[in-house]
């Protein structure tokens, strides 16, 4: 489950032993902490280093306990990545006379993208696929071509009935758009068929095509985001459901 940056959230914690819920937990004050780096057990016990904390009274014999957290600020709001992994740790007792038990779990915090979200592709994404691209094309030319490729891909997906806004996580398209951008840039740079730019252009176009054929995207046709997520391939056969 993912929790959003910038919004208060509840975390429902259920301790398990070998996959089974723990019974007979005594009434006590249990604590939870959020860390931006993986903490050590001793840090959790000492209750140090957390960026957020919460406590709640564990009801006797309850198998779960809920913790309320205030919003956690996004440390990198301009990031193109939709998720960041933080850590949540719990300090509680499963026996009245025993030591505190510490559990440390991953906590996925999400950057809300919203409907009609703009797929974020930048020069750095293109450079990851070909780090010499800026030797051949100035940054504005690269950015303009990225925008063109995004428009083209969006039009293609809409032609298949998938509005950009219903794609649950368009992030896998970043690489495909980066390759398509490179393919187009070098294609325009070629002076004749078979020269180096032409060969590079064909290679990148093929990689973009191959990537779009192999990845699966999730789309959500329902009005409530996340409740009806289904998969499709941006290229290749479309399976229609009645």
């Amino acid at each position, binding site marked *: 489950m993912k929790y959003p940056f910038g919004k208060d959230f509840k975390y429902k914690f259920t301790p398990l032993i070998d996959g089974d819920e723990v019974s007979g937990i005594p009434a006590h004050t249990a604590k939870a902490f959020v860390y931006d780096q993986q903490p050590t057990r001793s840090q959790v016990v000492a209750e140090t280093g957390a960026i957020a904390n919460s406590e709640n009274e564990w009801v006797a014999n309850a198998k779960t306990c809920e913790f309320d957290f205030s919003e956690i600020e996004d440390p990198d709001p301009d990031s193109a990545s939709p998720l960041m992994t933080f850590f949540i740790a719990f300090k509680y007792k499963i026996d009245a006379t025993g030591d505190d038990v510490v559990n440390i779990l991953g906590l996925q915090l999400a950057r809300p993208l919203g409907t009609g979200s703009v797929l974020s592709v930048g020069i750095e994404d293109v450079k990851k696929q*070909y780090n*010499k691209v*800026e*030797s*051949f*094309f*100035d940054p504005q030319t690269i950015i303009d071509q990225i925008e063109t490729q995004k428009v083209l891909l969006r039009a293609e997906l809409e032609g298949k009935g998938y509005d950009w806004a219903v794609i649950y996580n368009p992030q896998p398209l970043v690489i495909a758009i980066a390759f398509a951008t490179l393919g187009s840039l070098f294609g325009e740079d070629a*002076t*004749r068929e078979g*020269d*180096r*730019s032409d060969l*590079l252009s064909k290679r990148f176009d093929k990689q973009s095509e191959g990537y779009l054929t192999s990845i699966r995207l999730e789309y959500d046709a329902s009005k409530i985001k996340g409740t009806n997520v289904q998969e499709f391939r941006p290229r290749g056969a479309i399976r229609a459901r009645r």
Partner: protein
Amino acid sequence: MTTTAEIIEVFREEIFADPSILEITDKAFDYGDVADDIASGSEAANLRYQQQINFFTFTGFRELQTGTIRGTNTVASRYRHTIEIFYYLEKGEDPGESYNKAIAAIETIDDLIRLKLGKSWDDTVDFYEFAGIQRLTLIDTDERKVRRIGHTYVGTKQI
């Protein structure tokens, strides 16, 4: 005894690191075949400055000359250090602009040699002279039309 490497180092530090040259391009190679047979994207990228083929090459070689001093039985030797400097600039969309820029670039080099290195090229030779020009030509480099212009200088060092 001055070596070619010593003179090349002087040119590298005093001429090709000068801000007026770096404004033209930061690509300057001390070997001559950099533009021949571009085999990879890396080599192609290496020739480019601000997305255009734009670079200098500066190479040198040394010859030993021995001759008798007139009217004596004495033989004297000296080294002739030949330095060849070429400038390459992609012809681009404005042929007139690249043509004039190429000429201006090689003249900037010429001015800097005179002003910064002086007669003795920073004490590596006894004196130097301008030995020749390779006029502006159009060549093919990495599938592009590139202007090339060159100057040759000779420095003499008595030994």
